[in-house]
């Protein structure tokens, strides 16, 4: 089993994700500079957070059009896993791997704080370590994280279980105060139609050790690892 973390100019959570995969889980993980492309096939590719290309034009827009993304789209097409976190989520949306866009927060300010997420679908390669309806604590850190999608796209996402996480209260309720960036239907985690690509704004790698205040984010990485193990 081998994972890859893609580094764009401006990625800044690349080492955090690499640390969690390789040190906490002991899984082989390559850090790949985007210009070098994919040197081999990988079981899972993670696009980490940061500010690729300084968020020029729109967050993730420029990175989404780099040649390595064509390789990642092919990697996804054949059913392998892709996880985009924060700027990685913006890149996945901009590249069309998941529908919608993560755009400027309702209150146009950078928000960095712990939030509660409700697991909406625990039957995905990224969330199987959780239970449906479980509330987990993971931090967010973004200015462009408000999820927007067309009415039809939202309906399809909701009807087909492709919403993985929603912002909620500690008790799991979807109250207006528990939607920090104003995302449509509180959505902050979405899947593609095949279910092998997930984009999420919160940072599970920042919540993977108790010493950091929560290890609730570990479940995402352990889900991916178990999925790959079982698929062989």
């Amino acid at each position, binding site marked *: 089993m081998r994972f890859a973390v893609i580094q764009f100019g401006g990625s800044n959570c690349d080492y955090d994700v690499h640390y969690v995969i390789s040190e906490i889980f002991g899984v082989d993980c390559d850090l790949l500079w985007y210009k070098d492309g994919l040197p081999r096939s990988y079981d899972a590719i993670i696009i980490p957070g940061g500010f690729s290309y300084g968020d020029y034009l729109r967050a993730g827009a420029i990175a989404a059009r780099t040649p390595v993304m064509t390789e990642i789209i092919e990697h996804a097409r054949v059913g392998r896993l892709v996880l985009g976190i924060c700027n990685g989520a913006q890149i996945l949306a901009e590249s069309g791997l998941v529908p919608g866009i993560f755009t400027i927060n309702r209150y146009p300010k950078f928000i960095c704080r712990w939030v509660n997420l409700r697991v909406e679908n625990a039957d995905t390669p990224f969330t199987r370590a959780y239970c449906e309806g479980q509330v987990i604590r993971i931090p967010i850190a973004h200015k462009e994280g408000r999820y927007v*999608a067309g009415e039809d796209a939202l309906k399809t996402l909701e009807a087909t279980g492709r919403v993985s996480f929603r912002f909620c209260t500690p008790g799991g309720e979807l109250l207006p105060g528990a939607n920090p960036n104003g995302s449509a239907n509180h959505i902050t985690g979405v899947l593609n139609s095949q279910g092998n690509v997930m984009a999420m704004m919160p940072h599970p790698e920042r919540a993977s050790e108790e010493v950091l205040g929560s290890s609730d984010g570990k479940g995402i990485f352990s889900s991916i690892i178990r999925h790959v193990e079982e698929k062989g």
Partner: protein
Amino acid sequence: MYTAGLQKRYLIEVTTGMKFLVKITISLKEGMLDPEATAIRHALANLGFETEELRSAKVFFIRLDAESEGAARELATGMCERLLANPVIHSYEIEVLQ
């Protein structure tokens, strides 16, 4: 015979037609939330400027070669569709200026 130090350079003139200046305006679709515009409008109000509405947009001026005005417009449309605008939230307007 090859002689070290001697270099031949071929200059190929490519006739690509005319030069155009294209103005592309990317704006949020009607009804889309524009938090930055709201903040700017509030700041203007703090300075005593009362406004009824404020919308923001991004403008690109692009100089390019094309066979015709129609071809220039087509190139600009491709740029909007593939990079400059995101169809989920944006609409775009293309003007060929020169």
